[in-house]
């Protein structure tokens, strides 16, 4: 296990406006085909990036375990819902003490519907009650969705999606809750 105590911002890769790079911790870009080759990639990436992002936290290990839980769930959803080729980009930033993970994912039209549906569900007023009802009485084919909803209903994450007209990709934003110095939310 190697620990990076001071994480310096990644150098800008393109001529992007500086505010976008603000609070940047780390970003990773990889091909869909490479990622989709192995289910274990979700776990390994979530742990590696979780640990990297947690390097400067009060309790880096616990923070990383928590982060891995969130990041893995998002990656698993991406694993199940992406187009056949293209690139996935993950960016971790820290804003006002909270970690923001953005995942840009190439998608097909049916996957677009899935993500829209997920974000819509997440936005409903009494998500917690809805989530509990689903645990008591699960519906066919909803499991993947519940993973994302749990992050919001149980752990207080926020999920948003941005899509640009004509583009076959979406950007999912997972705003993580505030952690205390012991890596707890």
């Amino acid at each position: 296990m190697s620990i990076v105590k001071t994480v310096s911002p990644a150098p800008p890769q393109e001529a992007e406006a500086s505010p976008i790079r603000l609070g940047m911790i780390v970003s990773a870009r990889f091909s869909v085909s490479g990622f989709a080759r192995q289910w274990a990639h979700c776990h390994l990436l979530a742990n590696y990036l979780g640990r990297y992002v947690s390097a400067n936290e009060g309790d880096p290990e616990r923070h990383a375990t928590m982060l891995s839980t969130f990041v893995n769930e998002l990656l698993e959803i991406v694993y199940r819902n992406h187009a056949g080729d293209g690139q996935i980009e993950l960016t971790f930033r820290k804003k006002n003490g909270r970690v923001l993970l953005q995942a840009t994912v190439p998608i097909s039209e049916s996957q677009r519907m899935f993500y829209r549906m997920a974000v819509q569900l997440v936005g409903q007023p009494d998500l917690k009650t809805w989530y509990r009802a689903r645990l008591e009485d699960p519906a066919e084919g909803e499991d993947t969705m519940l993973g994302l909803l749990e992050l919001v209903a149980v752990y207080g994450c926020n999920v948003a999606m941005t899509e640009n007209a004509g583009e076959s990709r979406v950007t999912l934003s997972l705003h993580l809750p505030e952690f205390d110095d012991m890596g707890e939310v």
Partner: protein
Amino acid sequence: MSNSVVPSSSSGGAPSSGVPPSYMPMALNMRLTGEDEQEVTLTGTLRPFVAEEMAQVRTSLEQAAKTAKGTLCVNLKRLKYMNNVAFLELNRFVRWVARTRPDLRIKFILSSVIPWAIRKFQVIAELYPAVSIEVYDKAFYPVQPVIEDDEFITVLRTQEKLIWAHEQEILPQHGLRPGLRVADICCGLGDFAILLQRDFRPEYLVGVDHSKPLLRYARQVVSDFGLENIEYQYGDAAALLLADNSFDFVSCRLSLQVFPEPDRIVHELVRITRPGGRVYITNEMLSSVVGYPQQEAIRKGYERFLEVCRHGGVDLDMGPKAREVLANGGLEDVKISQINVTNTNSDAHDLARVVELWIRVAWQFGAAAGANPEMHKDIETGLRAHIDTILSDRGYAVWPIIAASGRKPFRTT
């Protein structure tokens, strides 16, 4: 919506590239824990791709539920990662129990060290009346409240200062040198880490403790000193989250003695040590405390004190067992040193304060163990007599501590 999810975690389907190999380095273990309790333990990582991969877990749980009487415990205290696919399968299992065995209770045993677990299972506990959760490590160290009060913190620091002067000299004999990766398990206030940093320059040091107030203190000190290569972690020494074979030198100081099952802790210390690295432990040997004059009262006082502590699962005479404990842990090249803190080679007032603290600890343990007033009297009389000898110009007093270390073999047989 299920059509758009390709593939769904519960569909059993696989992506067009073929079924991806699962990722579930997980262990499953079942045992009967009592007449009315059966326990199924899951450890490691549960991040399956599809629900079907949980079949073995489901079957074992269901079998256990069929035969269990009273309560079925599902022990997840060392399950570090779990994804939603696995969680939903556990939820399905709970629903199955509610339907088929309405008389059976299910208890999820969780650890406060795993940061995602409690919230996740609280939801299930609230949903089903037969389900409860137990956070097993919330109250498992009986003297914890004493240790965390301000006065004790001062005494811990005093104790550390007293011992360091001697320990510093023996540590190189136990393999400590600059540039090592060090883990200090049950690090307490972290003073040891700071002293090591000053005198032994480790490449990296992680301190683990199960007390949040002590860790907060330790972290503050690190940040006051501006130290970069020390990290603290809230954890349970009996189930560390640190990786196998990852440290050159693993210490556990004055702490094995506070656990009812020290072998379990040693197992963890050995696990995280790299082959060729060393595990270093210190433990007290209070049966050999020296105090003159008033030898008889002092001896009796410590005997009683040890008895009361043993009641609380704490063995303050563990020192001499170090060689056996390390050998049982599979370590070789075991080295033993004795540290004698005396009223002539150390600050007598500091030593007296440490003994003062033991009197308080004795009261705490005594109350918990239901010790009779007679015992208390013997302890108080003996330990006060010890303080007198420590502070007297002509008295002689020794506080003996055994330091021991062993090397992790390159090849286990």
